[in-house]
């Protein structure tokens, strides 16, 4: 049987879930929101009624992303933030609290690009330090800075990890390592913050992102191969497929869930 899915029409996709108003009155920060999954989550949360601060390192991506959400009727603003710098994260949290009176959801999505596939013995010191800084140090910054506000009204911390952080990655071993590390953090914080009513969960997505665009451009067979190995036979859309799951995790619909990682990947990685 051919595994080439490029000639196979994707299966019917149900209409989007209606999430209007689910996050009305809530305030969220999404890091790495200038593009890709981060922008998709920000857009989805805004469409659900949240006021969203798009925290991004570069204004040239963050400003237009926030403008696109506002143009669609959402409440969004850009805040410049390098998540590896504690003062930047503190400033983003202050912008939420001082500007909007509260912070209910912190989504840490920002990541340093993993670069081309390389075995661990060929990865340089700088890449190791940067990957750890954006994944674990930044998760610490976001978690600690947000906690006093999240605990005020049953807030939620959401980390964006990866299937590579669950099953490892031969192509990107360092990426698999740091994404796994985030899961150790989320499970521990779920235990630590549960008594305070703060929930901590993660999403492991497979979705169209700028990085996926680059990968499929470099490897023209990748998309068909990936689709062929995905039961739902398509790669997720950041706003329509990943965003609503983040809305769910941020909302009272998931109020009895903490310490979990949801693979939002069309069934690509089963048995995690």
């Amino acid at each position, binding site marked *: 049987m051919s595994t080439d899915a490029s000639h196979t029409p994707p299966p019917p996709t149900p209409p989007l879930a209606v999430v209007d108003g689910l996050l009305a009155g809530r305030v969220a920060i999404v890091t790495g929101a200038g593009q890709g999954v981060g922008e998709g989550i920000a857009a989805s949360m805004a469409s659900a009624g949240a006021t969203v601060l798009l925290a991004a390192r570069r204004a040239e991506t963050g400003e237009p992303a926030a403008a696109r959400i506002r143009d669609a009727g959402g409440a969004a603003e850009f805040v410049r933030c390098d998540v590896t710098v504690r003062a930047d994260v503190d400033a983003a949290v202050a912008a939420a609290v001082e500007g909007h009176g509260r912070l209910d959801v912190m989504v840490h999505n920002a990541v340093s690009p993993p670069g081309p596939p390389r075995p661990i013995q060929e990865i340089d010191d700088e890449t190791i330090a940067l990957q750890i800084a954006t994944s674990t*140090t930044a998760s*610490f*910054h976001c978690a600690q800075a947000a906690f006093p506000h999240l605990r005020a009204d049953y807030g939620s911390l959401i980390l964006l990890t990866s299937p590579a952080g669950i099953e*490892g990655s031969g192509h990107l*071993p360092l990426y698999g390592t740091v994404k796994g*590390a*985030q899961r*150790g*953090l989320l499970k*521990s914080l779920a235990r630590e913050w549960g008594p305070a009513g703060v929930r901590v969960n993660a999403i492991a997505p497979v979705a169209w992102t700028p990085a996926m665009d680059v990968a499929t451009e470099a490897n023209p067979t990748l998309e068909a191969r990936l689709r062929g190995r995905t039961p739902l036979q398509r790669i997720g859309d950041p706003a329509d497929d990943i965003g609503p799951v983040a809305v769910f995790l941020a909302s009272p619909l998931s109020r009895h869930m903490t310490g979990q990682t949801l693979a939002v990947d069309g069934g690509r990685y089963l048995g995690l």
Partner: protein
Amino acid sequence: MARRHALIVGSGDPADAVAVGLEARGWAVSRMADDTLEWTDDTVATRFPDRDPIDLVVHARYPAPARRRSALVELSTEDWCRRADEPLEAAVRLARAAHADLAASSGTIVFLVPLMASAGGEGFAPMATAAEGIRLLAKSLAKTWGAEGIGSHAITLDPTAFLDEADAAGMAEANSLHDPPLGRVPDLTNEVATIIDELTTDDFSSLIGASLVVDGGLWMPG
């Protein structure tokens, strides 16, 4: 036949106990303690200039600060880096430095990780972060290095292997409503060292990227 050479990385238990156990099973053991922070590609060759080629690396390096219980909100960024980022980075650097030896010997690298890596640990978020990253490093290395004949595995140990009695008891209670079915926790010197030794043999060459839980049945995931 020349004795096989094991490099044990880390101070205190479980590194100390496993080193004793492997020596008892005929291994020539070299040790690298927690204070080795600057790992480079020639770290091993520099530290052990007259050594035999390394056949086995056992990583159990969780420096004392990482094993200290603290609420996340009480940590400074410096605390976090010392307890989470530095141990994680050192493990990656160790793997990078050990590759040439392990490729030459078709050797094995084993990472010993605390239960909190997979299960989470209240008060131990930094250590759990580093440890789960290290457990995933073992899987990722297996995928990359398996074709070179290098074995890479992680072994999750019960809390007493890494923590003091009170903290270990608290973590055991948080993770299980029953005592270990084994009736005790596994002995590091004999039982855990034996499992590590066996993982290096041809009998287990088809075991790739294993993530074993050796805790007497305290925690049965999945």
